């Protein structure tokens, strides 16, 4: 187990290093950042000086080495736009993003798993077919368009919910959250529903596939034969065994949710790090983009590790090599 953990940690480090190389290379293709930091009417000498300060006069390997050193020390430079450390900007907005991601996951889990269990246990019934067609529509919908339609219906036509922003927040343990105020919830609900749809559809389909597989097994027949209640058979014997792939996909979906939060946040003007990324792409604010990508890469490799560990923990058939 220890050897496995060490191996995985080394792998994580390699992945993060590879990401840093890719991010560095891509960033150096995207124009000259010098013009982001100096006034338009600068003289050539001033441009040269700015170039030296930013280290742009050095060779590519040297620049990368500098970049890597700063990265390891957690120094990502200052945003060209906000003139603040890029790391702080991202971390400030991380809680807002996690808020809609977590609520979206909860919505997906509480809607998708019961529906998936039903559709998997009763494959032929009309309601199951309806559920499955619905999930296929869910996969086929452009998420941003759904968000727009929700805004149009709930905010423009019916005026029930606000269309953008984060609403009232309260500070808990130094973190601003909108999940503890009524106004906050009215702002959270539309972005979260929008974000959850894709995940909901995927989890539903995986749950159903797993249930269909499990319900054929002999132990389900035995459970029925010994007189276990229907609910007990479905959830205690069925779902429990169908849950393994669901947990894996769920973990991997967190990554997708963070990625799709960029679009959802843009539509709902939700002040999270995804919107900051999109804004920074428009403004070519390189340091912020780099921090976002490295942070998200870190989150992803950690999620992948956790998923693998949970996988081995909940399925005794799999042993760690």
């Amino acid at each position: 187990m220890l050897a496995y953990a060490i191996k995985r940690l080394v792998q994580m480090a390699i992945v993060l290093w590879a990401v840093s190389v890719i991010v560095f290379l891509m960033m150096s293709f995207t124009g000259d950042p010098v013009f982001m930091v100096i006034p338009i009417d600068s003289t050539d000498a001033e441009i040269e000086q700015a170039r030296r300060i930013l280290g742009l006069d050095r060779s590519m390997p040297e620049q990368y080495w500098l970049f890597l050193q700063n990265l390891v020390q957690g120094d990502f430079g200052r945003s060209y736009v906000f003139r603040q450390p890029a790391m702080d900007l991202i971390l400030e907005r991380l809680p807002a993003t996690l808020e809609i991601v977590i609520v979206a996951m909860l919505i997906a889990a509480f809607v998708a798993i019961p529906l998936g269990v039903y559709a998997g246990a009763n494959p032929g019934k009309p309601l199951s077919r309806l559920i499955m067609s619905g999930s296929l529509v869910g996969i086929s919908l452009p998420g941003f368009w759904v968000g727009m339609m929700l805004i149009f219906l709930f905010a423009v036509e019916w005026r029930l919910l606000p269309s953008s922003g984060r609403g009232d927040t309260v500070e808990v343990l130094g973190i601003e959250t909108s999940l503890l105020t009524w106004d906050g919830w009215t702002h959270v609900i539309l972005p979260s529903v929008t974000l959850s749809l894709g995940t909901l559809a995927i989890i539903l389909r995986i749950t159903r596939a797993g249930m269909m597989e499990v319900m054929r097994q002999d132990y389900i027949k035995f459970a029925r034969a010994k007189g276990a209640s229907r609910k007990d058979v479905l959830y205690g014997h069925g779902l429990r065994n169908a849950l393994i792939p669901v947990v894996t996909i769920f973990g991997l979906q967190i990554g997708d949710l963070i990625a799709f939060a960029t679009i959802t946040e843009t539509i709902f003007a939700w002040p999270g790090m995804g919107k900051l990324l999109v804004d920074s792409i428009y403004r070519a604010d390189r340091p912020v983009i780099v921090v976002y990508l490295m942070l998200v890469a870190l989150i992803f490799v950690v999620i992948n590790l956790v998923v693998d560990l949970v996988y081995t923990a909940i399925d005794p058939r799999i042993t760690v090599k």
Partner: protein
Amino acid sequence: MMGQLLASQFFYNWRRNLSAIAGSAIILVCVLIVLFGPLVSPQNPYDLTQLNLLDSYKPPAWIEGGDPRYLLGTDGQGRDVLSSILYGTRVSALIGIAAMLMACTIGTTLGLLAGFYGGRLDAFIMRVADIQLSFPSMLIALFLMSAFGTGIDKVLIALTLVGWVVYARTVRGSTLGEIQKEYVQAARVAGLRDAKIIRRHVLPNVLTPLIVIATVQVGTFILIEASLSFLGVGVPITQPSLGLLIKNGFDVLFSGLWWTSVFPGLMIMAMVFGINLFGDFLRDELNPRLK
């Protein structure tokens, strides 16, 4: 012989499967739009001489104030929404198909090489694939586009870079299985060159699982392209895809002008839904194990 048998069984199942027929019908309509859209389109939405600013923001024809000339209404430049959709569907669908073909070609080639030769090449390709798969496609595409800038060619490159991995992995897996088999050994003993063994003998035997992946990927690519264009880092304004039409409609949605964004969205949904319906059917047919 085998092929014909499969085809007839396949056709028989297709005829009895309502959602497969529905999916095929939607795909057929989309193909017709791609081929003949500009011919049947009421106007050329990008020919400025055909636009009339006085006709801007007309609602759909069946709503009060609507104009029978503009069935689905008009946008801010007096552009017919239906015509925009016909042209936009073309852009979206062609990007999805072209990117899928590129990703499939590159991914299959790399997968064949990795599986056939193994060793360092294999290790390298698979490591790259592993790293890439730990990130969501959407994020990689967004990142690439932010580096490349807008343009249809750039969207195609970004989608290809995002999409090759699934093919490489699948093909590598099946290639490893195939090269163990006697027919490949026989071809080797017969003294065929590697290139010929790969092309003539291995390739045809690893293609089947790719059909499902490729079908569904066209839908995925259409959605990713739409999202990129919605964020303003996709296709240029001169060749709007459905995603860009929705983006343009988003700005006026708050004024209650819903038709400029609702209809293009419905079109994307219908197109991708049709592809997914058909993809589901293909999956059941080609991988009976999963049924």
